[in-house]
């Protein structure tokens, strides 16, 4: 019987021969990922109330990223609590290595076909590896940590096919902003989004992660990409096992809810105006909008690939007067690689300030929140009012290339003019 990728993963996790969209099944999770903000401080009291410990400490991954580097009193206290809990429980702990959605796959623990929950709304990122991974709240996470199980309503699959090929200067982020504009932030209806097509196939893993990550902004439960040789190359590189995943794909005859087709070759660099990712438009149409802050950060927009893209624009150039460029590489591993290749040096020469490998301004944490009146162009996923600082700050979203080009110009700029 033909099935979608989402149905196959859920059926396996629920120990069922097959599942049908709309039915509610109980699935066993292969991994549960939590961070310092929604993790120990929230789930430990519930576990205590239940009077139970973890169902399997080896399947729990704790990553500190929200309150790193702990430069506030509140942050330092939460990090201490997080570290104590990690020691006590023996979970897998990655401390100060970067943002959870990037650190998890880099740690080699995420496998195609896994059924995974994350205590964070950007958790669909894991779908780039062909894992059914979605975000849940603290109460549900406590339930998972206690039982290893969670209920799931089998989603329909919405196919998003990108034909053709991206032009130079256009990135996965531009695809996602365009999709948010076209389909709206509830276009995903909490169903399974699956990205297919030649333009997706051509993307590297970190670009695919950007697509999966922003399935959340499309309102999908998950954002899946069927694993292929690009996936196995990444897994080998991080020292992970490469499972046999030849059946991890949506069968040709499987029933899907929608099938949207887009032409990657026709896509121009996008920006989203304040205060919604759905306010997407061509970057050219937003010129000239003056910016004071340019931010390259977050799980969505500061992975190695994002840093390399931005550096290609910034090399040998200086920031526009009055513009501050802040760069918070998503992970230590990505920053180290960027440093080895001279990419971090490009940022420094251009006059950028380098921030810790953490969620930072994107989640409104840390000491660099945006002030009232500031206009920021950001490589992050969300530009809701007040999210990155004062409610009277304005955030535009763009690709790392667009952010870099805008930092040089001092106003929103189409990066293709600078390649």
């Amino acid at each position: 019987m033909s099935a979608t990728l989402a149905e196959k993963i859920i059926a396996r996790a629920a120990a069922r021969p097959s599942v049908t969209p709309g039915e509610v099944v109980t699935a066993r999770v292969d991994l549960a990922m939590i961070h310092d903000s929604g993790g120990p401080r929230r789930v430990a009291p519930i576990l205590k109330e239940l009077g139970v410990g973890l169902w399997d400490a080896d399947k729990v991954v704790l990553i500190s990223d929200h309150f790193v580097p702990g430069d506030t009193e509140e942050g330092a206290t939460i990090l201490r609590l997080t570290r104590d809990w990690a020691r006590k429980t023996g979970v897998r702990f990655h401390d100060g290595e970067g943002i959870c959605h990037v650190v998890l796959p880099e740690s080699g623990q995420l496998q195609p076909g896994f059924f995974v929950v994350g205590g964070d709304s950007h958790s669909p990122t894991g779908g780039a590896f062909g894992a059914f991974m979605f975000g849940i709240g603290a109460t549900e996470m406590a339930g998972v940590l206690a039982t290893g199980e969670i209920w799931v309503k089998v989603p329909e699959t919405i196919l998003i096919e990108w034909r053709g090929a991206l032009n130079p200067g256009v990135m996965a982020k531009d695809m996602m902003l365009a999709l948010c504009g076209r389909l709206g932030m509830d276009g995903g209806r909490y169903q399974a989004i699956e990205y297919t097509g030649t333009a997706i196939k051509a993307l590297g893993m970190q670009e695919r992660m950007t697509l999966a990550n922003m399935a959340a902004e499309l309102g999908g439960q998950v954002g899946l990409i069927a694993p292929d040789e690009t996936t196995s190359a990444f897994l080998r590189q991080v020292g992970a096992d490469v499972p046999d995943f030849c059946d991890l794909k949506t069968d040709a005859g499987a029933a899907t809810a929608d099938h949207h087709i887009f032409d990657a070759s026709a896509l121009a660099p996008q920006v989203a105006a304040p205060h919604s990712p759905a306010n997407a438009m061509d970057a050219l149409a937003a010129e000239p909008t003056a910016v004071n802050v340019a931010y390259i950060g977050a799980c969505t927009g500061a992975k190695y690939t994002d840093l390399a893209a931005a550096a290609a624009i910034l090399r040998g150039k200086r920031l526009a007067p009055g513009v501050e460029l802040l760069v918070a590489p998503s992970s230590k591993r990505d920053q180290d690689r960027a440093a080895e290749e001279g990419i971090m040096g490009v940022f420094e020469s251009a006059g950028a300030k380098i921030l810790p490998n953490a969620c930072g301004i994107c989640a409104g944490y840390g000491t660099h929140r945006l002030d009232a009146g500031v206009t920021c162009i950001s490589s992050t996923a969300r530009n809701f009012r007040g999210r990155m600082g004062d409610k009277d700050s304005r955030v535009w979203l763009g690709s790392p290339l667009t952010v870099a080009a805008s930092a040089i110009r001092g106003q929103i700029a189409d990066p293709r003019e600078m390649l």
Partner: protein
Amino acid sequence: MGRIFLLGDDIDTDQLAPGQYMRGGIEALSAHCLEAVRSDFARDVRPGDILVAGKNFGAGSSREQAAEALRFLGLSAVIARSFAGIFYRNAVNLGLPVLVAPSVDGIDEGDEADVDPRAGLLRLTVKRRELALEPMPENLARIIADGGLVAHLKKRFAEAR
């Protein structure tokens, strides 16, 4: 038994749990529940009352307080043409019955009604009419009947011991 409060489409989590009151605890937050759409909602609503809404109820953020506020105010159920996914999960896990109605035609503001989540029925007691809802899946109805996920698990662990 309670009264129907009728709302439109796309009621979002900021309307249910306004961001600026999030730090004040659930009681203070609930006093502002839905005030952007009905300024007197928190004052008027009584335990047992039922919310009936259109499409995409609970859209927006993943904050659990959106469902928690409705439960705190004593709503016996939310009936909508459709729910945003994370809100639906949170409501079940916090013990708030959430039911999908194929149509909300014939339901009026102020109607006296009661809901049977397992059977998927809304009874309009004065109008003497019954409306079919999509029944809640049995495993979710059980979580709700136990009072939410934490209470449900407590019971399950107690039975296992």
